[in-house]
């Protein structure tokens, strides 16, 4: 079996298995902990509470006007590279073919040249994010191995993907193998680190938003 066969064969299967089991365990692991009932009389009904939670899912997507002056630029940077990643992962034709083989359906993609441009932009934003993390005193203090490794493995996927599409540095098959191996690595790392926020973000906003709404407080 050659490297490419290994990358998209057994390595991918193992990585997907670790990803799925890990993600489920990460949820189950804390969901099994005790959940204390709030006995204090709510200000709004249960339905009102959860409506507040749903509103928070949307409203926290962008800072409240009171905060935007201090956080707008940082959040814009964060959202920009996330949007870039989504476009590259979901709208690049070869990715659509691969994802189609997993999900059983496909969707229209964007031209390769546009995807390449977006990839380069996204990679640039990635570098800016790293620069900000190491130069901003707050971010530098909060950062640990998880932050840097999660950045590294995601950036590696982007770099190898760009190299493969641009045929830079090695034969295409070898570059593709390295790209898929980096994706395998990302899938393996995913449940262990902060990449899990992809699954946590909406439930986390909803739960905390519902609890604030229960008190009639702004969220």
């Amino acid at each position, binding site marked *: 079996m050659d490297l490419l066969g290994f990358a998209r064969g057994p390595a991918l299967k193992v990585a997907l298995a670790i990803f799925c089991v890990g993600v489920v365990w990460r949820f189950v692991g804390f969901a099994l902990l005790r959940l204390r009932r709030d006995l204090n009389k709510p200000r709004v009904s249960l339905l009102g509470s959860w409506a507040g939670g749903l509103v928070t899912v949307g409203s926290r997507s962008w800072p409240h006007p009171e905060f935007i002056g201090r956080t707008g630029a940082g959040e814009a940077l964060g959202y920009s590279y996330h949007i870039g990643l989504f476009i590259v992962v979901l709208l690049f034709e070869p990715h659509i073919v691969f994802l189609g083989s997993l999900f059983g359906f496909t969707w229209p993609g964007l031209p390769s040249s546009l995807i390449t441009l977006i990839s380069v932009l996204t990679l640039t934003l990635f570098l800016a994010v790293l620069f900000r993390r190491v130069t901003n005193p707050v971010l530098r203090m909060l950062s640990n191995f998880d*932050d840097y490794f999660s950045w590294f493995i995601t950036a590696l996927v982007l770099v190898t993907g760009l190299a493969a599409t641009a045929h830079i540095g090695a034969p295409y098959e070898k570059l593709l193998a390295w790209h898929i191996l980096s994706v395998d690595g990302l899938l393996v790392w995913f449940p262990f680190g902060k990449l899990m926020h992809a699954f946590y973000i909406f439930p986390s906003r909803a739960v905390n938003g519902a609890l604030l709404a229960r008190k009639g407080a702004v969220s």
Partner: protein
Amino acid sequence: MSDATGAFAADIAPEQAKTPEDRVAGAMRSFAQEVGALSAFRLESCIHCGICADACHFYIATEDPQYTPIWKVEPFKQAYKREASPFAPLYRALGLKRKVTADQLVQWQHLLFDSCNMCGRCSLICPMGIDVAALIEQARHAMFEAGLAPKELYQKAAHQRSTGQPEVSAEPYRAQLLAIGKRFGVEVPLDKPEADVMLCVPRTDIEHYPSAVAALARVMQHLGISSTFRSDGLVAENYGYYAGGQSWQREISLRLIEQAISVKAKTLLVPECGHAYTALRWEAADLYGKPLPFNVRHVTEFLADELQAGRLKLAQAATGKTTFHDPCQLVRKGGVNEAPRALMKALGIDLHEMKNHGGFSFCCGGGGGVLDIERAAPLRYRTMENKLREIDDTGAGTFLTSCSDCRRTFDDAKAHFSWNKTPHSLLELVANNLISAGSRT
């Protein structure tokens, strides 16, 4: 000791002495008892974006990264990952998370107490929606069990737990209450066997703002509401809440709960005291172990209801250009946003809101027990400057609030900065502008 932003040694009372091992064991025991699915989810969700720093007035004033709210729970995040998270065995086996040490806990006393008002502003900015303030409150519980609550809070909580008063007073509060009634010419209902509304009082009002105590009694009398204070459950404040001593918080709350039940009260009325509202309205039932058999209302909520029902009529108050400070525990953490504004509207007040108001208001700087912590004063003053600027920027000549601790904090700032504003009580303004039935204004 240190300057405003440096590291501090632990500041504890002699009776809090413990070995380092016992400190860690106490903190971890509390942590293990408290960490449930909800707090675990919050700890799991943090992406280290640091955005919460930009909501915290301690960080905004100093730009010191250690005041980043989520950093204030770092030892407990570390303990969670190592001891209770889904991959805890992996963290331990690979040595990825070290054990929390007593030195770490000592270092964090300053971050969890001196530099956090538990105001909850950080909980509104997190893009993951994490209620950081709730985590900080749990961390305070662990610090208390580690014997690391600041001595002022610990001693006041201990005194309140055993005597009902947070500190020794020249005269017992009961006697002071009656003296206030006499001085202001109002009947103070005390120790009635039954009443629809049970009243309690901030010790801050007894000691510093007796006119606010008289105002509460006057408004109740005016409305003809059957109400009473109770000698065995007088004080609204709960220093157990501030100090992080949950069992003490429970005992202190129980004094009021038991008295309210004994007089068959339909409502326990929280006076102008923000954290008393959080402790009684949003935490007491959990500590009591079952829903409370009465409603808990803040006095502004209660009066706004009376206003809406047409039983309370108010004259126009000639306060000129006025601004209002929203106490964090009432508004941001308690949802009491509209009631004070309804009262101010009925009083015909020309309200000029601060740049950050309502749920987004900056804390006065004294909340969370910070006003009581002596060594925290330099940092508190530095933090307050932004708030005072916002108040000044409204151009208002009159400054109102509805929490006596906030009022006390602003009065303290007035003396410290030679500030030209005096914080006034909204309740007192209501009491001074009551319209009697049948009269016309």
